[in-house]
């Protein structure tokens, strides 16, 4: 009904991912940010951004498809 859920889904994870990526990049190498030696904030932030963009892309495609 009405709204494609993938739009808010993509927006939420896109913004969350950007926030985490930026924070991860800013605190890179600082003590306590790399459990088991992995810069996990940075990596996971990028994963979230990718997921968000993918959702937005799917929503965009669906919108175009329904217009045709």
């Amino acid at each position, binding site marked *: *009904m*009405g709204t494609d859920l993938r739009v808010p889904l993509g927006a*939420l994870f896109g*913004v969350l991912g950007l926030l985490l990526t930026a*924070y991860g990049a800013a605190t890179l190498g600082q003590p306590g940010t790399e*459990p*088991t030696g992995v810069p*996990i904030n940075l990596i*996971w932030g990028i994963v979230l951004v990718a997921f968000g963009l993918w959702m937005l892309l799917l929503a965009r495609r669906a919108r175009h498809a329904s217009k045709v």
Partner: protein
Amino acid sequence: MTTLHWIDYAIMLLYFAFVLGIGAMLRRYVHTSEDFFLSGRSIPAWVTGLAFISANLGAQEVIGMGASGAKYGIATSHFYWVGAIPAMVFVGLFMMPFYYGSRARSVPEYLKLRFDEKTRGLNAVSFAVMTVFSSGISLYAMGKLLNLLLGWSFDASILVAGGIVLGYIFLGGLTSAIYNEVLQFFLIVFGFAPLVFLGLRDVGGWAGLSARLAGVATGNGYAPGAYTRSWAFMGHASANPVGVEWFGLVMGLGFVLSFGYWCTDFLVVQRAMAANSMTAARRTPLIAALPKMMFPFLVIIPGMLAMAVSSTSSVRQTRVAPAAQVAPAVATAPGVTPTPSEPGASEPRPGIVPPKLDTRTGQPLRDARGRVVLDYDLATPMMLVHFFPAGLLGLGLTALLASFMSGMAGNVTAFNTVWTYDLYQSYVRPGAADSHYLAMGRFATVFGVAVSIAAAYVAASFNNIMDFLQLVFAFVNAPLFATFALGMFWPRATGHGAFAGLVSGILAAAAHHGLSLPAGAHVGVKGGYLGVVTTYPSELAQTFWTAIVAWVTCFVVTILVSLVTRARAPDELRGLVYGLTPKPSDDVKRWYERPGPLAVIVLTLTVGLNLIFF
């Protein structure tokens, strides 16, 4: 106590804003009561499918499965690979045609159409009471956990969480709950996946985890693989940490309890009823089963890891140990109790699960053999604060909050529908305008949340009352699947038969529980109050067998009473019973989108998972 950074709060606030924003956005689509309670039956299958598992993905799931993972190991996966998945396939393939096809607006309403008023009334009243109390119990668990972990105020935690859930359901009804459940689903996946990744990396992968848990297993008197193999030790109840043998497991958990929950509980079935077509409704549980079968990796493995990682692992050397910070908060008398993270604690042992403390003395509780009892419910939360740095910790805690809220929202939306359609419209005020019922639905949402919050406070002050209530709920639920199975597949089953079967099943459950006791337990809420006739090796074994007894009693009594009461004409049962209903046709193009092939794929993968961890 763990202190959060601004980034953690920012992530949480962002999520809350989105959740409420979705409710506000969907408000303009809610015009009728059907929009509010059933989303106008207009939601695509992938959305209802994810909501189907997310509504069940409450605190009991995330915290409870982590706790069971710590306690029982990979055998906890039976709750998924023997329990949930086969039941979800069954409800999708065989039962959804009647739920969706009968145009019933709720599960109790199906009972009314198929049987009679009294059967519906019994189910509606017990379901309405159970849902609000369940949501109260999980609210209480959340408030207690946040207080323990982060030092947040119990009152503020439950009022804010309850308020947010109320806000988005009040505005957008079931659609809002379902949309947010999908959001919550992905949040839980993305919040917990890095935990499994970091944890497994820390212990050296699955092989490292197995090696470390072998030590725990032999220490507890089991074979080395008892925590990392799901079937190998199920031959005898004494050989595995679950304390159940394969027959009780397959029949009690797999057949009676899981089918009873996934096939009859309106909380989950409501999601499928909101689907936009019959095929979408049937595909809902099947689509849900695909991610569901992967959930053991997400929720059980963190619990197992909590028993295996050492509190002095590499994580502690690189950052201020959160485990050490949490420990004093866990203890009611800080400094008195040896905590696992204190060097030189009197009983060194692997894992980061803290001991359960006596609320009066502040000392760790000990079992009959004098060993420290662990507070398994803290397994997953301890993993979060142990492994996640600021930033990711915010995401992990938001995922935890999301699981609490999705569980509560599921309960509240199911409650407001059953209350409005099955109780209010049926018994209090029939025949009013639709707008009246829409307003009542919104009122019931406020009422449901308010009662949940009140129940959370009752749980906080009288822990025993909640144990007792959960016991009563278990009795009420155990026989349900027999009633539905006979109703859907045996045209001869009558209303009198169904009602008599349900009541006798509930009584049989209570009687069996009252006559049996798990080993080492005291007579009381754990059973034995009618005299101890038999003992079980574990509480779960007792639960499974209670369910089996209730189911068989209900099944037999329903058949016997049906045979001596007057059956309904086949014409009246069209669309309600198998054999009298035209086979549903599929409206999807690709073969793998059809319910049948999808079910085969799901079951094949499930068998595969069972074999991998055999």
